[in-house]
Each structure stands twice: as structure tokens, then as C-alpha cells.
């Protein structure tokens, strides 16, 4: 009997010995732990792409950012009365708790912190792994992403530059990576301080990055020096520094028509090609790419195509927003029979829909962040404002954009009675040219004009009222006591 007992005891002890201590320190096989993220050149290259992956999330520049800017404007009608699909934003009454207000704020800062964590890791170990020349490129791309992200957030969550000359509260600025629990509460910088950070990033990106030829896919989906320069024409316009717009644009736009850049950027003959596969046109400067692979397209209820295209074949949108009959489509000078851009309008069930992003589910159309046509119009406006005259180059730039889509129109200086008329025409051209790409709200606030009424219950929003811009995310106000709301 004792023998058996001993045997049993032996088995028991073996059971103990068999315990595998290594199992107490598991490492996931599906995600890469932080201590292995900077181990190889290839992995760091993946991280460089990852900078953009986070930015192109459907809750940020991959969808909702553009959608929010469009539906705040006057060009669309909310069809579904659904707060998840930005009904409150369309009605200009979102609170800080509104899903889109929280999501865009949060995803914007996640994009920024991802850049910061990357830069921190590169400085610590990554730069040695990839070598100096590649390290510089990655740093430039990271800063471009950060600059674009700060600029985008600033337009929705802060008063425009003209209000107090940039002295109003801007964004909370972080440039160091946050990878663990910490005390990160920080107050909002001013609008001017935020712009200064954006310009620092973009200037740095311009210096660090290369200047590849236009049109190649990699020079469109990853930042280069031209992306930074082009973006600066926008940023300086929003900062009301028109001389700087002109100076930056000079690096990208030839002195006279046909307008081209040293790298070959130019207007595409047919604007529709910019929004059709393969999306790599010489007009494209920086676009966010999508494919039908898992996790490579925007998520549910964040896709531009889902919001604006109808359900009728060949589209598979949800028709969340139809075109407002009193929106920019009501402009008779935007000719319905000759202007190519009218082809983006389709009729379905008695309503008009905007189909600039027509590809059906899973909605893989590339989203342009900046393209050459905008740069031309940025320059045109800056010249008109800087010279305070009907500047012939400004007219030529404007004409180039209009004429590209409507061959029946060529503007001359004589078409504009004064600089105001020219500026109005440039603003209208931008409105039409960039319709659906997420500019309308930030153009309205930049210009300081009221948001037009959209229905009996959605009245005019004057530049002075609080709803002119979005409130700050309620989550930020709850957890960051140093942050103040817009009012």
C-alpha cells in the first residue's frame, strides 16, 4: 500500500514540476509588443506607414472629418434624422457629447500621439536601426502628419484666425509621446501658437523630405516636400498671411499658365479622373489610399460614399444626405450642361445626390487631402488679397480651374468689376471645385460669413454665436481640468 502511496505522491510532484513558468510571460502572436516594435528596418518602415493608417481612420481624415465639414455647410439635406450620422451637426446643435465631436477630437489626437510615440522611439533606438538618411525621411513624414492633424482639428474646435487675430483658444499641443499612464493635462494654446506649431512641422517636413516627380502612387500616398509646401499654402491662407501663401505657392506653381510645378504637378484634364482609380494623377498631391482588404477601408457609418451616394445602383450608399436645392448647385453660373463637375450629381427617388466618391461598399475611393486645384485657388485668393486688385494672375488661376471643367468659360480681368467680385468668384469656385471633399465648414468660418439657413428649424448661424464652431469634446473637459470649452 505504501508503495502505491509513494507512486501517487511522485505523480503529484511531477504534476508540479510540469508547470510551465514560461506560460506566465506570454507574448501575443497577433500584435507586436512595444519592446519589439523598433527591432528591424522593415518593422520601422511599417510604422512609417502606420503614421498614415491612424490618420486615415474613418473617424478622422478617412471620412468623418470631411463629412462633418460638408454637412455643417449649406449644400446638403439630412435625410435620416439620425444623430449617429451627424444629424445634430447638420442642425448646428451638436453638444460636446455628440459622437462626431468626440470622435474627431479623439482620433485627431491619437494620430498626433502616434507620431509623437514614433518620433520618441526613433530617437531612442529606431534611428540607429534604419540609418540617418532614412531616419530623416521618416521624421519628415511624421511631422507632416502631425501638422495636418493639428490644422484639421483647429478648424472645427477653435475660433477662426480673424477673430481676435489668432488670440482665441486653439488646441492643446503635445509633441512628446504618451505610451503609458501619466499626467498629461495641459491647457489650450492660442490659435496663433497652434498655427506656429503647424508651420514648424510643415517647414521641418519640407526640409527633411525629398521632391519626387508628380503622379507616382508613392508620391501621393506618402508625404514629400511638395505635400508640405502645398499644405502650407492652405495653412497661411487660414492664417491670413497672404504673402506667405504666395511665397509657398511660388515653389509649386509656374508664373503663368499652363500652371505646373517643377515636379510636374498640373490640373488633370478631366477632374473626374482625380476621383477614379487608380487615383494617382499629376493633380493629386497628397491623398489617403484605401483598398478592399480587411482594415484598409473606412468603418461603418464613416464612409463618404455611404453618406452622400444613394442606394440606387450602381451606388450602395445610404443616401444619408441629399443635395440641398438652395446649396451651391443652385448657382446658375455653374452651368449644368457644360460643367463636368455637374456630372457628380445624380438623381434618385426625386432627390439629387453627390457622387464624387462613388465606389460602392466597402467604399475604397481615395480621399484627397490636398490637390493642385486647391493650391491654384489658394494662390489666386492670396494674390487678390495681397495686391487688393483684380490681379491678372489670380484671374488666370481661377480661369484655369473653371475652364478645365467648363470649356465654355475663360475668365479675363474684365469679367471682374473689382477685387471683391474676384474674391467672391474665387470663393465660389473653391466651393464648387472642392464640394464633397470636406472644405465647406472651414471655408465659411475662415471667411467669417454666416452659415446659411437649411430649413425652418435650422436657421442662419451668425459668426458671433457659439454654434459657429464646435464645442470641445465633453470627454476632454471631464478628464482635463485645464481645458476650457468654446462658448
Amino acid at each position, binding site marked *: 500500500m505504501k508503495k502505491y502511496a509513494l507512486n501517487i505522491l511522485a505523480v*503529484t510532484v511531477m504534476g508540479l514540476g510540469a508547470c510551465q513558468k514560461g506560460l506566465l510571460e*506570454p507574448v501575443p*502572436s497577433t500584435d507586436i509588443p512595444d519592446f519589439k516594435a523598433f527591432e528591424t528596418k522593415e518593422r520601422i518602415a511599417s510604422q512609417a506607414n502606420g503614421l498614415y493608417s491612424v490618420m486615415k481612420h474613418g473617424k478622422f481624415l478617412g471620412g468623418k472629418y470631411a463629412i462633418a465639414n460638408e454637412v455643417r455647410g449649406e449644400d446638403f439635406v439630412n435625410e435620416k434624422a439620425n444623430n*449617429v450620422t451627424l444629424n445634430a451637426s447638420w442642425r448646428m446643435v451638436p*453638444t*460636446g457629447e455628440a459622437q462626431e465631436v468626440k470622435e474627431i477630437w479623439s482620433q485627431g489626437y491619437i494620430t498626433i500621439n*502616434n507620431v509623437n510615440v514614433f518620433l520618441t522611439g526613433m530617437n531612442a533606438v529606431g534611428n540607429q536601426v534604419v540609418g540617418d538618411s532614412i531616419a530623416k525621411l521618416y521624421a519628415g513624414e511624421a511631422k507632416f502628419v502631425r501638422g495636418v492633424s493639428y490644422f484639421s482639428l483647429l478648424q472645427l474646435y477653435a475660433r477662426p484666425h480673424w477673430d481676435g487675430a489668432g488670440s482665441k483658444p486653439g488646441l492643446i499641443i503635445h509633441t512628446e509621446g504618451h505610451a503609458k499612464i501619466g499626467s498629461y493635462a495641459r491647457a489650450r494654446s492660442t490659435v496663433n501658437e497652434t498655427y506656429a506649431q503647424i508651420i514648424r512641422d510643415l517647414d521641418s517636413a519640407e526640409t527633411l523630405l525629398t521632391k519626387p516627380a508628380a503622379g507616382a502612387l508613392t508620391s501621393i500616398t506618402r508625404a514629400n516636400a511638395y505635400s508640405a509646401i502645398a499644405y502650407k499654402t492652405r495653412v497661411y491662407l487660414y492664417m491670413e498671411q497672404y504673402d506667405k501663401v504666395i511665397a509657398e505657392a511660388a515653389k509649386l506653381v509656374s508664373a503663368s499658365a499652363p500652371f505646373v510645378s517643377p515636379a510636374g504637378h498640373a490640373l488633370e484634364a478631366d477632374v473626374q479622373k482625380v476621383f477614379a482609380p487608380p487615383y494617382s494623377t499629376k493633380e493629386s498631391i497628397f491623398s489617403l489610399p484605401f483598398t478592399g482588404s*480587411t482594415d484598409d477601408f473606412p468603418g461603418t457609418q464613416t464612409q463618404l460614399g455611404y453618406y452622400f451616394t444613394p442606394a440606387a445602383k450602381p451606388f450602395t450608399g445610404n443616401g444619408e444626405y441629399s443635395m440641398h436645392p438652395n446649396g451651391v448647385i443652385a448657382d446658375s453660373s455653374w452651368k449644368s450642361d457644360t460643367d463636368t463637375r455637374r456630372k457628380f450629381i445624380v438623381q434618385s427617388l426625386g432627390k439629387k445626390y453627390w457622387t464624387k466618391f462613388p465606389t460602392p461598399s466597402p467604399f475604397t475611393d481615395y480621399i484627397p487631402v490636398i490637390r493642385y486645384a486647391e493650391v491654384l485657388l489658394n494662390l489666386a485668393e492670396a494674390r487678390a488679397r495681397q495686391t487688393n486688385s483684380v490681379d491678372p494672375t489670380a484671374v488666370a488661376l481661377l480661369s484655369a480651374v473653371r475652364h478645365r471643367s467648363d470649356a465654355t468659360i475663360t475668365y479675363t480681368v474684365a469679367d471682374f468689376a473689382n477685387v471683391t467680385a474676384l474674391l467672391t468668384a474665387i470663393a465660389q469656385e473653391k466651393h464648387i471645385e472642392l464640394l464633397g471633399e470636406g472644405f465647406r465648414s472651414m471655408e465659411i468660418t475662415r471667411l467669417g460669413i454666416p452659415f446659411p439657413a437649411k430649413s425652418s428649424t435650422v436657421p442662419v448661424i451668425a459668426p458671433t454665436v457659439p454654434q459657429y464652431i464646435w464645442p470641445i469634446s465633453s*470627454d476632454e473637459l471631464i478628464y482635463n481640468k485645464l481645458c476650457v470649452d468654446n462658448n
Partner: protein
Amino acid sequence: MRKLLLVLAGMLLIATSLLAQHPRTVKGKITDDTGNGLPGVSVSLPGGRTGTVTDAMGEFSLSVPENVKSLKVSFVGYETKTLPITGNSTGNVILLPDSKSISEVVVVGYGTQRKKDVTGSIASVKGGAIAELPVQSFEAGLGGRAAGVQITVPNGIVNNPPVFRIRGSNSISMSAYPLIVIDGVPAFSGDVGAGISNSPLNPLSSINPADIASIDIAKDAAATAIYGSRAANGVVFVTTKKGKAGRPKVTYDGWVGTTRPTRLPTVLNTEQFLEMKNEALKNAGNTDRYVANLDANGKVIDTKWMDVVYRDKTISHNHNVNVSGGSESTSYYFSAGYTKQQGILKRNDFARKSLLFSIDQQLGKAFSIGARMSYSNEQSLISGSSGSLEGEAFNSGGLARLAFLTSPLVSPYNNDGSYNISGSGMSGGKNTLPIGIYNPQVLLDMDHSNTEASHIQGNVYLQLKPAEWITLKTQYGADYILMNNDIYLNYLSGDGVSSTGDVTSIYTQNKRWVWTNTVQLDRSFGKHNLSLLAGFEQQRDARERYGLRRQKQMDNYFNNSEGGWLTDLSRYLLRKENYLLSAFSRLNYNYNEKYYLSANVRQDQYSAFGPNFKKGTFYGFSAGWEITKEAFWTNAGLNNVFSSFKIRASHGKVGNFAGLGDYDALSLYKPAPYGGSSSIYFNQAGNPDLNWETSKKTDVGFTYGILNNRISGEFSYYYNDINGLILFVPQMPSAGIPITSTTATIATIPTNVGSMYNKGIEFSVNAVAIDKRDFSWNIGFNIAHNKNEVTSLAGDITAIPFVTSSLEQTSINKVGYPTSMLYVVRTDGVDPATGRRIFINANGDKVYFNNADAVKYKYEDGKAAPTVGVKDAVAYRNTNPKVLGGLENTFRYKAFELNVLLTYQTGFYVYYGSNAGLRDQRYWNNSTDVLNRWQNPGDQTDMPRVVYGDNISNGSSFAIAANVFKGDFVKLSTAALTYRLPDNIANAIRLQGAKVYVRGQNLALITKYPGPDPEVSSNGNNASGQGVDRNTLGNGRTLTVGLNVNF
């Protein structure tokens, strides 16, 4: 041998002395309540001087002196009975399983203990109490049956895990669900398919309730500490049936029943809809009007969407056959079950096939081996989202909401009989204004979102007793859940339209093995009784999951992922593992069964904890004092009243990490393509200091038995001080910490920071009020009071709001308040002068809201006020019941038995969020409450003036106090009338016994709560979002007829 001889000699002596008193022989038969003869029952003369035991058929024959007028019948696990003797036979005597006896045995973790020796707090429920209930899993039937146990069946979706709490909610971010241990193997619990398909799968439903012998619920540290880091929520020990020595026993159990939805809201018909919406349009200054549509016969369409979605005549049935038996060295139990149950939502079904086999074999004198294997196949079937599971509340296709939201103006079908579809939704006919979201009929007809699991559980053991007082045991247990989800969203209406059909198949395997080695020493030294347990245990879980998602169906013929589709995507990929390595020990000591001491200790090392804190030690101590054994007690004559009175106290430290992700402590980079190129990015901020939550539990109480245990019960006071709560601490968005979960709205990092306490008292009493031969009345009553308070959260974060289904901020955990406070904007009714909703903003100012006004928010004086929103919300009302319990009465008259269980909960509130939708002034249909709307100055009503497009006044945009109601209720939980076939008839048809019963479940509800049922949870078991009723399905009322036959 010498002992035996002495006993024999003694018995002879007694027998001789009895003979001298002209004894007679009394015969009888003892059976259980199903008529089966009970072997081994002791039948004795009063005073216990002599007696006998029943034979294999339950029959006995005993010589009884003339002057003896009664016999005592007793059997472990059964109620003791005293029989009056008239004549020479007692006839058939039925013994009932004893649900209150303090002489029985309870399971305590790695062993059992006599209940009278227990010094921890353990409540026991016999399997019989839940075996016949029309529930999918046993724990759904526990409500009201044990003090301090709260069970909330969250809605009418079948196989949805109930909310299960023992002594309040003992966690905030982790699971507050107790640890469930089935025959020694910790089981999976919760909804294992959560977040994937719309049909929940409660892994505990794999256990056929009819196979359960007993459920022991351990509540305090002494009783739970042996489970260390997993014990803080309490431990529930489930013991399945085993065979008993005797002839094979065959039992059939079955019932058939029907469930109907109850207390659904009444919504507007077409006439009322037109009146209300057109008035609202007019009030909004809108010139559009709704108009009626006509059907093919020219009649006005008036669709009752509730009837489209709910099922009135459900059929459910349940069958179970078991065979058990054994010899002196072998015992076995074999059972097979089948059940199919229909829910009150159309297309919502649950089906289970189950097999259980257990065998125990003695090998020689010292060895024994045994095995228990169970296999079950469970199917949870549903068309799609009901809107009732955690995360579903605002699903566009949520059927419970579509049922009340969709306009009566339109029919599910066009007049030509085809489906009414337009875009992803429905055509309004003559209306251009919206009339609904999706066509529920199409969703119900075409979609499916099914879950099927094959669940294999089993264990084998080898036990050696080298000496009577030494037991060595090794047990290996496994629990495998192999699960398939099959999800199809049709191309005609609903979420599948934009992808022209969308189908997903997911395969998941949850694999667990547990290897336990224990040694137990039991020894008595005089009056000192000692029992020592020591053991080691390893538990390993591995989870793998992959899913195939396909879109764009090539033909409307296809509706599964194996068919023809154009787009292929992967989905729900997962591979995780964890490992728990433990050592534990328990020492029980008592002196003369008068003074008791017990100590438990366990050390756990767990893989998911941060590298800095892998190892934790937990313990529990307890002491007991059986006062009735004291001379002073006896001298005071108290023994005439009290048959037992034991004071006990315990204290200990246990932990909790249930729900902690396997890799939550790590910082991770996620792979995701960037335009077809490789990319990874920072996606999870971990915490190397992450470890268990700590519960320090103190418990003081007494158990009592009065009048020979005719009245018995228990009283406890407890205090549970919880520290180091693992909170997913919200990070300010500007810090840019990534949001790891796709359903979360804010980034979090798990951190051991918060603290809270639960304290309360529990009291239970079981009494045999009447115990006559033909009539008996048993009463069981329990009541528990619990107070919960959060005492700290994350440093300077003193409040963490909770968002229901990623959309609506409904709840808050706030320092100084209980968990899950309702977090709403206060309201002050409706202004009788103008019909405007009056909100009270954060400053306490009244703000009047009019959606039709250019300046929508105004102060009382007419000045513009800032927009009111969630920032004005306050921690408004408590959702944790302060008092809860049950009252069970069992009346027996001859062959009839009536069992009635009432459950009650008071002192809590429920947010009836669905009411916001039922009064929403967009195109939504409304409840008939809106007919009471304000119309003229002076109208006193709780329904504001209707203004089309107004989704603020009634709470759709943010949660408001007007939709918060008291949840107090008394529920007629079950009532069952049983008739037992008389033995002569049963025997004539060759049965050992038979009974039939009719049973009602959820029969009546007394409450002021206006929603379908105050027992509800839109957020499932989530401990931070209780008391929310947002677009959930109601509960049903079930009637069953059952049969139990023994062969």
C-alpha cells in the same frame, strides 16, 4: 471486529428488552416525492434507541413496543419526519428532499464539509428547486432562493446570461459575475459569443438543470478564499448528480410550455399617428403632412408592428431521461436531454442536446477512480439584432425598437404582395417624410445571426486512501467550447444593403484544462478534530477565433458564407492564452464540535498580470461556536427551544480579475494595411503594474435551528472592503492614448486604483409551519440589505461616466455614490403655460426648451440660455437594489403540492430609456402616452407640446430624469401545482412513481415601473451600466405542463 461484536450484543440486549414489552411489527414503505422507494432510510424509535433501515425497495419492517406511538424517519439530504403509528402499517411515507436541513453536506472547494461544521457563509440550493424551471441555464432560476443572491434576467432573449450578483456588485470594470465551479472545474461563464452574433450563448446553459444535484453559493472570505484571486464575487459550486447504490433507476422528466410577451407599451394606430405627427409638423412650422396609405382593398393601412416582431404563441419543450444506479463499488449516472425553447421575439430560439455520463469505481480498498463527461450542443438562433444585448441598444436593425418606432402608415408589404423596400429602408407610400428605419419583416424573414456551440466538459480523477485519514487525489479536468457563428444580413433591407448582402462565419474555440493535485488529512485526537488540505493546481486557457466575411452576393439564392460572393474579408481574428498556477491549503479544526477554527490560504500566479505583479497570496480565517453544546445553555433550558445555535465570524482577503484581457498589461502595435502596404501602429497602452482587485471580507453571523430544526435559518452581517479595483481609467483624449477596443469611445488604461465597499445584512428562515400527515406547509423566506459605495476612483478622477452602446451617457461611477448611478439631466416637468420641457442645468437653473424657436433654450425670464446637454447631467439615482429576497411557500395536501415563489427588490431606480424613443417627436411612432401632450395654456401633463423634429424634450439626445422611475417590485416568480399519482395506480401501470405539474413563470408583477419589466439590463452584466432599459425586449410569461415518471 470487536466493535462490531459489541454493537451486535448491544442490539440483542435491546431487542430482548423490547420483546418483553409485547412488541408488534410495523411495516411501511418510504419513497421520495416521485414514488421511488428510498433504500437505506433510517427508521427509529423516538429517542433513537433502536431502529432499522429500509431495504432496496424502500420498505421496512420494525418491531415496536406497545407503548411507542410514533416512529422517526430520517435520511441524509431529506427532511426528517415523525410518523404516528396506527395499526401495523404506516403505509407509504414520502420523504422530501431537504432544502434547509443543517445536517447535510455542502461543497466547499476541493472537498465537502458537513453543513453543521461550516464556519463560512454558504447558501445551498437543491437541484430539485430549479430542475423543472423553463430556463436555459440553472442560474436564471436562482433568484429569490438564497439570501444576498441577486439574479436579473435582463430581457426576453433566450439563452441570455442573467445578471448575477452575490452581496452586491463587487467590481466596477471587471466582471462582477461569481466564479462558477462545476464538479471541481472552474467553468466559462458570461456570453461567450458577446459582440459577435446577435444571439447570446451562455456557456452555463450546457448544463441541463435536471442533472444538477446541488448548488452551493459561497459568499464570505472563509468559504471562498480557497479560490484566491478569483473569489471576490463569490463562488458557486455546482454538483451534478451521481448514481447511488441500488437497482437501476430510470427517470423521465419533460415539460411543454408557452411564453407570451407581457406589459408591452401601447403605440399609436394610424389615426392617432396622423393626429399627433401632423400636429407636431404644424407646431414646427413645417407645411409637410403625413397622410394615410391604402392597402390593395382600399382600406387604410394600420400596421401593428409589435405583432410583426413579437411572437404570441411560442412552443417550448424539454425532455430528459436519466439512468442511475450502482453497487457497493460502482456507481453511475447517465442522462440525455433535449430542449427547444422559443422566445417572445420571432425567430429567437434555443435548442440544446445534452449528454452526461459519470462513473465512480472503487478499486480495491485504497484506490478509487472516476470520470464525468458531458457533451452538449447548444443552438441560439435569432434573425438579427434584438437591440437587447450589451452594445446593441442603438442598432439600426434592433427589432425591439423597430417594433415601436416604425410608423403604422406603412405595411411590410406593397399592395402587390412584394416587400415594401426603398433604399435600405421602406417606402412611405404617399409620404415623403420618413416612416421608419428598416423593414422588420424583411429582417425577420431573411436575416440570421446564429450561434452554435459544442461544449465538452469532463474530468477524471484518481484517488488513493493509503490510510483512513489520508486522501490523495489527482484530477484533470477540461472544458472545451467549440463555437460557430453564422450571420447573414440580407441585401434588401437593413445593414446588408450597402454591401449587397453581408455574410460572416466565425469559428471560435475556448479551451481550458485544469490539473489539480490535493492531499487531505482528517484525524481526530480525542475531542480534537483536524482536517488539513493542501494542493497545487494549474489552469490553462487558450482561445482562437477566425472569421470569414463575404459581401456582394452573386445571386439572391445565397445566404451562407460558403455560397457565391464577390468580396472576401477576414473578421474577428483572435489568438490569446492565459495560465494560472496556484498552491493552496486549508486547515479545519474543531473541539468537540463546539469550537471551530478554519484557515484557508492560496497563492496564485497569473499570466495576464503585469510583469511587476505576477504573484498574489490570499487567505481567509473563520471561527465558530456551537452554543447549544455549552452547559450554561443547556442549564438555562434553551435547548428545549434551540436545537442548534452557532455563532460564526470570518475575515479574509480574496481577489478578482474576471474579465481582464489576457494581454491588457502589455503595450502593443497593431498591424493594419495602409493602402495595400504593410503598416503597424501603436494601438494599446499597457500597464506593467497591473494586478488583481483585492476584497477584504469580514462576516459575522449565526445559524440557528429551533424546535428540532423545524425552524432554521441564518443571519449574517458582512463588510467587503474592495481596493485596487482594476479600472479602465479614461484618458483625456488630448493625450492621444490609442483606443484599443473598436466599440469604446474613449481611450483607457487598466490600472489598479479604485476602491469601494459593500456592506449588508442577510437573514433567512425556513419553517415547517404545518406538518400533518395529509397537509403540510413549508415556508422559506430570505431578505438581504446591501449598501454599496464607491470610495475612490482614479486619483483626481472622481467620476467616470458610462456610455450605453457607445452612444448614450446613461450612468456614472462616482465617489460617494453606489456604482452605476443613473447620470441624467434633471427635469422639472412641462411648463403648463407653454408646454415646454423644463430642464434643470448644472447650475440648478430652469431652462425651457422649444425646438420650434430660433432660440431653443431660454431661462424662465425669456433670456437665451446655454444649450443643455450631458454636461448638465447629475448622478441622479441609485440602481442597486437596497433590499432583495424571496418568499417561497410549499403547501402539500395529500397528493397535491402547490409551490409559490415570490421575489422582490426595492430601493432602486431604472432608466426607462425606451420611453425617450416612445415619445420622440421625429418621424418615430409613439406610445399612446403622447396623446396627453400639452395643447393649451394651463394643461397639466408630463408630455410636452409636440414639435416635429424634437428629439431633445423627451430624452433621445441625452438621458433625462423624466425617464427615470422607481424599480421596486414584487414578482410572482413561479407557481407550480403538482399532482403525484397514487402508488397503487402507478404500480398498476408498472411505474415506480409519477407526477404531473403545471407551472407558471413570471406570472404577475406588482410595480410602478412603466416599462415592461424593472428586472432589465441593456448593458448585460456590465457592472457600470446597470438599471438601464434602452430599446430592450420585454420579458415573457411562461406556462408549462410537466411530467415526471420513474421506472
